[in-house]
């Protein structure tokens, strides 16, 4: 849990992959409705940068995604989480995990 998605940066997002996450979800306020005015816009840019990095280093860009939700959208959150988990399941474990520990299974990291 973070005060704002604007607090997260590229190094921390990559840190999650380095530590064995197969996917990372970043969930912020709806665009235009950020509790801290513009934090989620900055977060989106950072997520896009990490997306490009993951692509370049062949971990797979689709392992990271930013979602925007309001606090009242619990069921939508559940739908997003399920959708993302399914997506990661389909892609399979991160190459980092495959190399490091054989086929250990699938996990995902949720950061909000």
């Amino acid at each position, binding site marked *: *849990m*973070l*005060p*704002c998605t*604007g*607090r*997260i*940066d590229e*190094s*921390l997002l990559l*840190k*999650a992959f380095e*530590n*064995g*996450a197969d996917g990372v979800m970043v969930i912020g306020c709806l665009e235009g*409705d950020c*509790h*801290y*005015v*513009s*934090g989620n816009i*900055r977060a989106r840019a*950072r997520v896009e940068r990490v997306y490009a990095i993951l692509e370049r280093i062949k971990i797979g860009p689709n392992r990271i995604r930013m979602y925007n939700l309001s606090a009242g959208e619990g069921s939508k959150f*559940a739908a997003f989480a399920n959708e993302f988990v399914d997506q990661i399941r389909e892609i399979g474990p991160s190459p980092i995990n495959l190399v490091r*520990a054989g086929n*250990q*299974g*699938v*996990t995902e*990291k949720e950061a909000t």
Partner: protein
Amino acid sequence: MTGNLNTFAGSTKNPTGAVMVIGGGISGMQSALDLANAGIKVYLVESSPAIGGKMAQLDKTFPTNDCSMCIVSPKLVEVGRHKNIELFTHSEVKSLSGDAGSFKATIVRHARYVDVAACTGCGLCELVCPVTKISYFPEVPAEKEKKSRAKAKEKRLIKGPGLPHPTSSHKWTFSVDEQACSMCGSCHRACLHGAISWEKKQKAVIDQDKCTGCGACFAACPEKFLAIKVDGAPDLDKSIGAAVHARSEILGREFGRSKSGDSEQKDCIRCGLCAITCEKVMHIGALKMVEQGIEAGVDICQVCGACVSVCPVSFLTIDQVTSRTPRPLLNFFNEGLNGRKPINIHYPQAVPRVPVIDAASCVQLNTGACGTCATICGVGAIHYDHRETETEIDIGSVIFSPGIEVFDARMRGEFGYGLYKNVVTSIEFERLLSASGPTSGTVARPGDGQHPKKIAWIQCVGSRDHSCDRDYCSSVCCMYATKEAFIAREHDSSIKPTIFYIDMRSFGKNFDEYVKRAKEHQVRFVRAMVSRVFEDPLTGDLELRYVDESGKRQTEAFDMVVLSVGIQVAKQTKELAATLDIELDRYGFAVTDCYQPLATSRPGIFVSGAVKGPKDIPETVCEASAAAEAASASLAEARGSLISKEVLPPERTPGPDDELRIGVFICHCGTNIASVVDVAAVTEYARTLPGVVYAEHPLYTCSQDSQERMREIIEEHRLNRVVTSACSPTTHEPLFQSTLQQAGLNKYFFDMANIRDQCSWVHANDPILATEKAKRLTRMAVANATAGEPLDELEFTVDSRLLVVGGGVAGMTAAIEAARQGFGVYLIEQEPVLGGQLLHLQRSADGRKFADFLLSLNEKIAADDRIKVFTSSQVVEQSGFVGSFETEIVMPSGATRTLKHGAILVATGAEEYRPEIHGLGTLDSVMTQTDFETALENGTAADWHHARVAMLQCAGSRDDEHLPYCSRICCNHAIKNGLRFKKMFPEARVDVLYRDMRCYGLGELDYREARQAGVNFIRFDPEENPPAISTGETGIDITVTDPSIRLQVRLQPDLLVLSTGMKPRDTEELASMLRVPRNDGGFFIEAHAKLRPVDLPSEGLFMAGTAHGPKSSSETIAQAQAAVARAATLLSKDSKKLSGIVSRVDPTNCAVCLTCVRACPYGVPFINDQHSAEINPALCQGCGICVAECPAKTIFMGRYDDRNIRAKIEAYCASEASHSPR
């Protein structure tokens, strides 16, 4: 009715700075907290043994489905631990004398028999108490010490399916005390196993090899000798009752006794505990062990139920041992759905968590026997000699908020409540849904425990009902029934709920959306009044008869029926009101004035909550704050005179090399978490984590006793970090942090994992995975706490002035009241005159002219030099932070002025919606309700003697193309105008076309009066039965099917009056300036829909009136007072502490690149004269954007620092291999 007019008057001379709040429900608690936090001493008097009231009994709350207990328990705890709130539970007000400003009250504390200060709330007494029934005690208690025992004349043999199977398991050792033995041979004759040898004139000897340990000899040895000794019995040093309990527990476990008391073993195991209990604990001696079972002296049995409760197997039942009818001892908190003991804690989260002994059923208090609880209590808190005590207190004002009770459904005999077991009331159903209720949250029929599939709710049972003198609408039933149906389906998706209703009165904020959602979740709504309920005696199913909308008689079967009982004022409340000498109406609701909605007929006594008329929780909370304001305004000069400040112990400063000592608390949350997550396993796991030196799993970590215990544990184990894995940090983190502070620990040495929402709730169907996730979240929280640092909280002075934006009735009232509280006020209004929407309205609900009221408000504002009014002015810029804001306004001259103040109250109001429909604005014959009211007032209507008027409700409201929400006031407004018109011109005709008449609360009385006066009401449905309306220069023509006669009617009225509803003023700019959210309709969103109705989400910002949502003038006035009370909790303080979670620049690495200066959305960072970026902690909002952006990574932020987040990420993935992957 003029009410208590001195609310606005000057203050009394030398008032007492204390208030007595009567009633400890959510209303009383809120009043108490607002008062105590604003420097007024509070005495909170509650008649039941614990505070919490009705809200504590509810399962979930509408329209957010928040768990009621979860949101109320932090309040319970806050009240319980507040230094300036003195709790009088199990107490009543006996008398009140004196006058406003200096009352004297006498409070009677009923004997509790348990010392509140000493008790730890462990609940052991309740566990060992053997009594489960209301006994038949001798009518006149024996005066002599030694009374002769009654001898049984009627004996009954109790047999199981087979013969007894004697057990020697965990047996006690019996031996003969040679000194005491009088050689009578009773023991020899009683022994069923031939283990006692005795001959005349010989002392008895027990052969231990043959003895099975049944204790028959022990029970048989005459009282005057007591020659049988017992050894080897655990807890015998405490009492024989305690020893019996201990052995019963062990044997119960051995024979597989379930929680409900059922066991596989149906035959007597001849443990002898029943006979020993009856003889040695209860001093009755009605039971005797015989060859085939037990012989009961059914005529001397006192029917206390002890023998049955100590029986470790399913052998004894209460009906067997007595010839009298057993009287159950019911748990009133659970609405009598299950039993309780004479000594009991009111409910698991009760504050104070201290049991009370019920004098009517306790054996010790009635016969002097038993007394087991006192012997087991480790702290000696139980005192049978307690007597009621009287305390006299001095107070300046009184708040009367005793709450309500539910209607006795037996008065509506046709529904069979009390006769048919599967007909329950709505409050009983709440307890059935509740996780801590009698069925642990399983929806089960009381009749047979089966899971019902078809459940019917019958609305308006004891509401809107002239036949039983409950003419008013109870306001909450439509919503709570919808909620119960909704939640029932959440518990069991195969449940098919049906709600039978008259009008769907979902008039509150977001209520219509909630009903819509319920419909989407397959809750069926049937508009029909059920005429009768019949029970099928064989199955217990219920048959409902009703007439459907097409006029057909219908019969439908249901498994269970819930009666949506209305609310009413209890008899005791009416008596109390008489004691206090305040006026009630015929139903028992307190009489108030619509301009002073909180003042009763007696000056100095204020009222809040449902005792002032039916209302829901947020309205009650709002009124409670308002009552606190009204009660304290005249005491303002005595503020702070009677309170004591909380003194925190000095914080322990951790050394850099201190060993890590982490304590972890894994919460059961009753069954909320523990029913899914294996909390014991998580606790075990937590113990293995690095740095963890202590871990436990309390039932409710947030309860007062658990918090006290946490404080002790922190000190005892010298903990320097604390982690709780429980519910949401949003609601509970402040509570745990304050406990840390009380234990001398910096409050940021704490982290919390939410294993309720994120584990037990979302993974309810996968306990193993939920438990694994709970372990992982706990591991992450421990890692974060390890990385934690002590943070300082900046303290700054609070500017005591209040800025009020909007000069309508809300803003004016708020300004006057804040000034009375002693605060300076800036009142900003964009129009040239004050008054807002009230300028366009004519008369109040009781017929007084609003113009006169506005005049008096204007006079008061003009007379008070603490209020500075800026008309034709607008807010253009706003900066600063809670306690120290700066706002720039533009005045009519075009000049700007900067105002400094500590809090902001938004009261921007709303206006009448004027859509261009049906010719409104172009035709003279089409007008709004406000226009119509004006016409009645200014003489335009003078010759409308035979006018035909049609009123169209929801003309713009509840319409996705116009206002999607219900405007709440229109139904009452139409009735008010319709009635007035009919009274002026009895020959005139009024037809009201409506969807649902939402005349909530006492408004229903006017609705009834309007119908009696001949106002005609025609219901339409915008989808199925829309009225065809044509308007033009030639006239108005309306065709609609009237469902009550099922015929098409044609109206050709002279006037068409549209109830267009209310829309908020344009506040887009203001909202973005203040950074506060608004909903789709443009109304401001409160910090919490239920418990913080007038707070805006940002600290120091409050709101009142129609800016929050549509409401009446009276409700607006109350809300304005409430907002002032909330602001007073801040403005009355000299200083305030800010959050420690703010960004801080380490200048050593700062390259002065200006990234942070550019990134900060609030423009806080600046470059100081040391050539480094600097961030003012008082202005920092704590978002952390700069921390992430800083290229030199030289900005740090409290517990959301890189090192914290990294620690959590590492802990998330750590030891992955050792845990089962999915």
